[in-house]
């Protein structure tokens, strides 16, 4: 009985180790997906930073001049990441908006609105 189970276990483990040599790789698709995820994560991180800077400022933790400087820096960062993200989508022909989640759309919309607001402010100033 023990020998039968041992052989079955050996066969199963052998299969698990060997079968990848007989299937096709999907490496490129994975790389694109992972880079897309990374850019999305970074976009979200910048957006979160902006909201945190805003919050810290209103809590009295950051001086006004630091607040302004940090905010404009992160908005610039956001535009670069969004650009990189859009380039990636364009390159990989994945630019259809249906692929995006609601959260992704919200983040983009809010950062773009923030960019627009700052541009208008600059023009007025």
């Amino acid at each position, binding site marked *: 009985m023990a020998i039968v189970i041992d052989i079955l276990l050996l066969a199963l483990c052998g299969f*698990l180790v060997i079968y990848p040599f007989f299937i096709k790789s999907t490496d490129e698709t994975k790389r694109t997906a992972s880079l897309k995820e990374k850019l999305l994560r970074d976009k979200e991180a910048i957006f979160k930073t902006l909201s945190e800077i805003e919050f810290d400022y209103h809590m009295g*933790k950051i001086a006004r001049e630091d607040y302004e400087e940090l905010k404009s820096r992160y908005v610039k960062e956001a535009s670069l990441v969004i650009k990189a993200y859009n380039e990636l989508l364009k390159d990989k022909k994945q630019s259809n908006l249906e692929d995006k989640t609601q959260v992704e759309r919200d983040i983009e919309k809010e950062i773009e609105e923030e960019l627009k607001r700052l541009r208008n402010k600059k023009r007025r100033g």
Partner: protein
Amino acid sequence: MDNLFLANVGSFALVLGFLISAYAVVAGIIAIRSNNPALSESVKGASIAIALTTTIAIVIMEVFLLSGQFAIQYVAHYTSSDLPLFYRFSALWAGNEGSLLLWAWILSIYSLAISLNNIVPRIKPIALTILNINNLFFLFLLSFISKPFVILNPPPVEGNGLNPLLQNPGMVIHPITVYLGYVGFAVPFAFAMAAVIAKYPGDEWIKVTRRWTVLAWLFLSLGNLTGMEWAYVELGWGGYWAWDPVENASFMPWLTGSAFLHSVMVQERKDMLKVWNIFLISITYVLTLFGTFLTRSGILSSVHAFADQSLGRYFLVFTVLALFGSLYLLIDRLNFLREGKEFESVFSKESSFLLNNLLLVGAAFATFWGTTFPLFSELVTGEKVTVGAPFFNTVNVPIFLAFILLMGICPLIAWRKASVSHILRNFTVPLFLALAVIIYLLVIGIRKPWAVASYFINFFVLFATLYEIFKGVKTRVKLTGENFVKALINLFVKNRRRYGGYIIHIGLVLIAIGITGSSLYDIEKNVTLTTNEKITIKNYTIEFKGLREVRMNNVDAVVADIDVYQDGKYLTRLNPSKNFYPNEPNPTSEVAIKGSLKEDLYVVLAGWENQDTAIFKIKVNPLIAWIWIGGYFLIFGTVFALWPGKGAEMGPRVISGLSLAKEAE
């Protein structure tokens, strides 16, 4: 019994797991060098196979333990027919072989989880190979050195039973949580080493392993807390922490792990402290191995070590290899790890985090030095000089107080740069409230300098944290127009990572308040009482009513009946006992405790002269309950911060959009 053939299957599964681990290490290295995706996938298959073999082995061991298969040496050593089912199950981690098996199983499951996740693809194969080296080590021990499935011939009719001290719910949870913590730190360590080996820029490895780090820290915290509770209720000496080498073994990686958890935030946000972070996670991982070496080798005397010198030797070699391997890589890649930015101001969150790190590492070093001093003294003078609790307390108490103080200051300071006027404004309210508490404490007679210092710092931190939350709610009300309750809920829910951290801080403050009260204001009396004799301790009157013999499950017990009066009014009856377990030469003490938020009345039946005369150790331990309550806060806060979903994301950071754009090309 007819399930004995499973022993063969268990042994075979472990050897097979060892061979597959060896394959996974070699194939992993080749796959990394040749960039062969099929070979990488094969390593992933090997991870599944390793997890499968260790799962089969652990299930077989549990079958043996639960069915009382005494033909298996391990089962005969650690269980008996009259042992409750619950403790038969937990006997898996009562001995060396079983706990190593548990360790190997957890490690293999963690490795499997990593291999199945598509995280940081560029360095994951290296991290997986490092984890597989760990798998290889543990499966080598289980296959050739510390075999769990040894068959006794002829089989004994009865087992030795489980050590009575381990027959406690705290001791069921304690080891498994410590192992989960120890093994958990292997994951961020593997990724850190992988990032260094591959010269992988950025801090993505920190983000993807953050959950593993926090989870490992949570389990290690739980392990330490349950260990403290077990020592308090089971060992009967009246305390919960004795700076025993094995206690220190799990405390040291907790300290450095706590430092790492904070310093990675600086790297995440500021691209700083890269070398320091690699050093911290390496040292944390090495300390988990060192802790295991201390526990296994029996090199230092402890109340709960498994002494097996040969096993200890293997752990020592592995620990030294891990230490020097990681240090070599760190030094070799110093250039690559050079800092992205510098500290912009002394008054900034990042500089306060660095200070907090130095204190935690300082405490870890002091604990390490005190723990290993007997070894060094023996090496130099030939005499083993033991370092006691006074050394650890003298060195560590000021460090911990400074650390707690920083815990209150850090959240009030902004990243990058904070103005002194802002800091002072934020400190005024908590400072005033803490002073008010101190005046009250002085009035009621709490005047020992260390107690006053500790309570002042702890209450300042408590009020500073609560004030920070209050200000957050106020700001949210102003910005969103939400009502106070909704703003409070949303403040926590939408940034669980930050506010979960604050809950943990509150928990640590409560623990520190409990430790201060119980260690500086405890009262102890050792008395011999005859039947109906009374004794007074603080405002309690203890009346000894007599001894009786009781038979419970697998235990014969001598129980004392004690009536307790508080301020002259009857409070409760306590029943401390001495328990006699079969196959155990010495009885164990079962402590009787009447606890409240204010203090614990702690009674131990130390012995008896005859039926009417018994010896007791009676203690009043103030504020002990706050240690456990603080522990619950700490656990809740960690789970709150860790729970997946919105609000638990990584912290914001400085991002180089240009480098990302370049990568996208």
